[in-house]
């Protein structure tokens, strides 16, 4: 397998982890977040600072990174989730811009130059890179998916679905909307933080621009395209929106144009996502499956 393909695959897996987190917030709990990249960045910078400035290993730093991402998610989520739905989108955009500005202008985070020299992840005696690192990330993705699957079997997820559908009715069934919106938000930001940490160790060099608003848009697009609220939607969406730019690479100058055009067309004609209810894909697959069952 060419090292180029491994690079792409690894990045895809790392992004999928972040998008799974976004799925908990947007798909399960129905809250919009257009600032998810900020938490991806918080995870990345936490990992970078803990490993370069404090000399911790990836594994020791990991629970701290997840904890920090979750905590900041909680702090930022508390005021955000009280505002009206329309405001939430813009507030999360604002969070993205502000967090990015903090990383860019506060000298502790390396300013415009970012933080470099982030060590590779050590697994026993091996410094992981290439294919072994890919499998490590894959392992984390599987873990995240398992957590999501287990989450959807719990009462907590029912509460989130209820809030997503009809918040007022949900509250009359013992569900505190603020509490569960926050719960989903914290789980989502924790997952984003995990992804960010892997990203930092992978790139070995990060800067504020890696976590700007367009990245949040990218995450949300991947989620929506794959199908919000489904288990595999994040993976499918990330795969498709991650691979397409690579497919368009030969088009050189026209790449971004075709990519954005394709995104527009996909969202316009398949807004429910590829794994969503009325999707093209389901319409083809369902009758096929029925045919097999006979």
């Amino acid at each position, binding site marked *: 397998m060419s090292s180029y393909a491994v690079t792409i695959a690894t990045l895809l897996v790392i992004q999928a982890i972040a998008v799974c987190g976004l799925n908990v917030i947007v798909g399960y709990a129905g809250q919009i977040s257009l600032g998810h990249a900020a938490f991806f960045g918080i995870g990345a910078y936490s990992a970078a600072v803990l490993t370069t400035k404090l000399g911790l290993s990836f594994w020791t730093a990991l629970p701290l990174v997840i904890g920090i991402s979750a905590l900041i998610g909680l702090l930022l989520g508390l005021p955000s989730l009280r505002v009206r739905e329309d405001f939430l989108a813009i507030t999360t955009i604002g969070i993205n811009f502000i967090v990015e500005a903090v990383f860019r202008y506060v000298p502790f985070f390396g300013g415009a130059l970012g933080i470099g020299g982030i060590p590779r992840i050590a697994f026993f005696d091996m410094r992981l890179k290439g294919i072994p690192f890919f499998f490590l990330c894959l392992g984390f993705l599987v873990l995240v998916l398992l957590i999501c699957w287990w989450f959807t079997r719990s009462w907590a997820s*029912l509460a989130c*679905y*209820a809030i997503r559908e009809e918040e*007022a*009715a*949900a*509250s009359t*069934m*013992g569900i*505190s909307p603020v509490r569960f919106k926050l719960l989903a938000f914290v789980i989502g930001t924790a997952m984003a933080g995990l992804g960010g940490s892997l990203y930092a160790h992978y790139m070995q060099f990060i800067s504020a621009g890696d976590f700007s608003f367009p990245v949040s848009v990218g995450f949300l697009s991947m989620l929506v395209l794959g199908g919000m609220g489904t288990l595999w939607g994040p993976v499918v969406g990330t795969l498709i929106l991650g691979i397409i730019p690579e497919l368009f690479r030969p088009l050189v100058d026209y790449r971004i144009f075709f990519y954005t055009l394709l995104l527009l067309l996909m969202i316009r004609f398949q807004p429910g996502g590829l794994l969503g209810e009325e999707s093209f894909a389901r319409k083809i697959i369902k009758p096929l499956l029925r045919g097999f069952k006979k």
Partner: protein
Amino acid sequence: MTQPLLSLKGVSRYFGGLRAVDGVSFDVFRGEILGILGPNGAGKTVLFNLISGIYEPSSGEIWFSGEHIEGIPPHLIAQKGIGRTFQIVKPFGSLTVLQNVLVARGVTRYSHLFKVWGSWGSKAEIRKAMEVLEKVGLSDLAERKAGLLPLGNLRRLEIARALVVGHSVLLLDESFSGLRHDEISRLEDLIRSIRKDGLTVILIEHNMRVSMGLCDRIIVLDHGQKIAEGPPVDIQQDKLVIEAYLGGKGTAYAS
């Protein structure tokens, strides 16, 4: 004289200058079916919202089973066993009918640190949820997506969910609206059987025939104030009530 289950004392709710509910007091006794009547805009739904915690009273007290519940958020009131339906139905559209009821079944778990992580799909849970669906007559629609149901079934789903939550009191807000004749009589039977099970029912209803036939006692509101209270037979002849509905020169009530 037995202790009332639910008691409102001088409850008022103002919105700016508007007195939606103005100094309303009444008691509700265990096992009765109480009707809340009144012309449009009288403040009936606001009253429900006050009891179920969606609004906080501007003044007054609400007692339930011997404790203050005014100002307590809706989810905590639900956990005390007060269930309600909404005038405009609010089904969880993309969930199945069964899942809608299962959401209600979780009422005792949502505030519990550990129980909230338990699985909702166990055989026992599903069986209990199906029992409720059977009671309201929706069991063969259990796997249907709630968003696809017609209004009559949606009203029954609302009641099913409220039944699960309301092991003490059921607040039914215009549950008969928009139903056909046969659906209405089925619903009347259901409510009577609910009362036989020991629940207390408070219902807001516009349909005079239904409310007169179903309720033990009736309270009439007009412009936020209680203008009459008593058994149906008295209410029908109450001058103030007739005036409120017909605006002055009424004779007998319209049914």
